[in-house]
């Protein structure tokens, strides 16, 4: 079974702090994704990566950056956290070209105060 893990289930940070969310997958998937999930808005894509050291902006990249130094790890960085970044953050991975299912981690509930 595909396993996607995220470093924290719950996180509370202060406005202005730098926040790192880590995601690791163990199935040698090429593609990794970061989403945020907010009530009534569904999943919105922040950033994704098709390969090591590659990154592409999703629909809402503002205020975020990412890092993919190793194939199995994809990090989401909030350079200066703001209250409007309070959300559920979900990491996913998938194999190869399109038409393959994305498998999600358990999510990180981030609260910025």
């Amino acid at each position, binding site marked *: 079974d595909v396993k996607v893990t995220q470093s924290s289930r719950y996180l509370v940070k202060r406005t202005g702090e730098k926040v790192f969310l880590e995601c690791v997958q163990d199935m040698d998937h090429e593609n990794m994704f970061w989403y945020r999930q907010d*009530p009534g808005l*569904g999943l919105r*894509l922040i950033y*994704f990566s098709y390969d090591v050291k590659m990154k592409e902006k999703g629909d809402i990249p503002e205020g975020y950056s990412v890092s993919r130094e190793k194939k199995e790890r994809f990090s989401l960085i909030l350079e200066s956290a703001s209250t409007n970044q309070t959300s559920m953050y979900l990491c996913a991975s*998938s194999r190869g070209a*399109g038409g393959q299912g994305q498998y999600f981690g*358990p*999510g990180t*509930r981030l609260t910025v105060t």
Partner: protein
Amino acid sequence: GESVGLHLPTLSVQEGDNSIINCAYSNSASDYFIWYKQESGKGPQFIIDIRSNMDKRQGQRVTVLLNKTVKHLSLQIAATQPGDSAVYFCAENIRPGNQFYFGTGTSLTVIP
């Protein structure tokens, strides 16, 4: 069915009954679809997928139907159980890329 907006559609069914959850997808070029189940406090869980060259696909207690003419997807759950209570949402993939577009979901409540 699903819709974009602030209110999550809800569906309540009696335990043992069949459930049907609907999804209207947006792009006629989408050729791969997935249904996910998300329980409270957890990440989405892959349930079943279907490609655009199929109209129907069956899994264990679940069936997905695809109507490309009207861009409609449905998930049927047979003999619904309390453990099926969750939010269900569909996702569409436009090839050749890897991005998916997700519906906002339908909240299913199973009444014992």
